[in-house]
């Protein structure tokens, strides 16, 4: 519970970094960077789970996270290449990465069912937060239509994963 709140709080700081810069709303290269970073974080978390978890349901979920987020990030890379855009690092991406590293270290100390529960609980919270950022900031602020459309697909994906994570979290109790 404390960890979930801690993550939510940290992301609540990270995401408004974009919102508060609304006078100069995030540029497409920044938005692309944030979305890519958010996906890459979830791929890394899934890989960590595949290294640590023995629970078949948790492993199947982690495999899905790795597979789906890799697919959408591959598409994102192809799109930025096509558009001639270089994703630009920014405070939101940096805060997301810092937070993910802290969570990774914390999960690394756990094992067995304790790890499974903490991983899945974090997946619920993480997908919820990224959904909020996509719907509230990143999608509305994206200028390029193709980028916007890819972010919308990303949002549908994150929403599905959130439901899946919630369902799994209920089963682990």
């Amino acid at each position, binding site marked *: 519970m404390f960890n979930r709140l801690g993550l939510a709080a940290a992301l609540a700081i990270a995401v408004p970094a974009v919102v508060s810069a609304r006078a100069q709303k995030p540029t497409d290269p920044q938005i692309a960077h944030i979305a890519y970073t958010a996906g890459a974080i979830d791929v890394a978390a899934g890989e960590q789970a595949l290294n640590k978890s023995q629970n078949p349901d948790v492993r199947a979920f982690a495999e899905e996270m790795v597979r789906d987020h890799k*697919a*959408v990030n591959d598409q994102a890379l192809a799109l930025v290449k096509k558009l001639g855009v270089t994703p630009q690092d920014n405070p939101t991406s940096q805060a997301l990465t810092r937070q993910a590293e802290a969570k990774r270290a914390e999960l690394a100390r756990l094992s067995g069912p304790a790890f499974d529960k903490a991983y899945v609980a974090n997946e619920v919270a993480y997908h919820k937060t990224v959904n909020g950022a996509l719907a509230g900031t990143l999608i509305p602020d994206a200028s390029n239509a193709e980028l916007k459309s890819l972010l919308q*697909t990303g949002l549908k*994906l994150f*929403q*599905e994963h959130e439901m*899946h994570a919630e369902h799994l979290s209920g089963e682990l109790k």
Partner: protein
Amino acid sequence: MSARRGFGFARLLIAAGWVTVAAVSSAATAPKVHTVVIADMAFGPAPADVHVGDTVRYVNKDMFRHTATARDGSFDLDMQPKTSAETVVKKAGTINVYCRFHPGMKQALTVK
């Protein structure tokens, strides 16, 4: 005996000019292939007029792996991105289809 009778009956139909009718009615019951496209994390519209014995082909045009899984257990098609899979529907009724990976993806397939 029955073969001869059948032959005789067909001749009778031809003679009566009903052979066209017979051909049409057999075409109407011949199995058909219906296609459902999966794209952007969703099933496309369910095909209308699916009958028992028809084939339903799911075409996954998405960048993600999806399944088309019947809740009643009658089929479970697992599709990598840009692949397709098909099933022959065996009984009438409404089959609730979903994706095992993304359970919010749903479709009600009505078989007549």
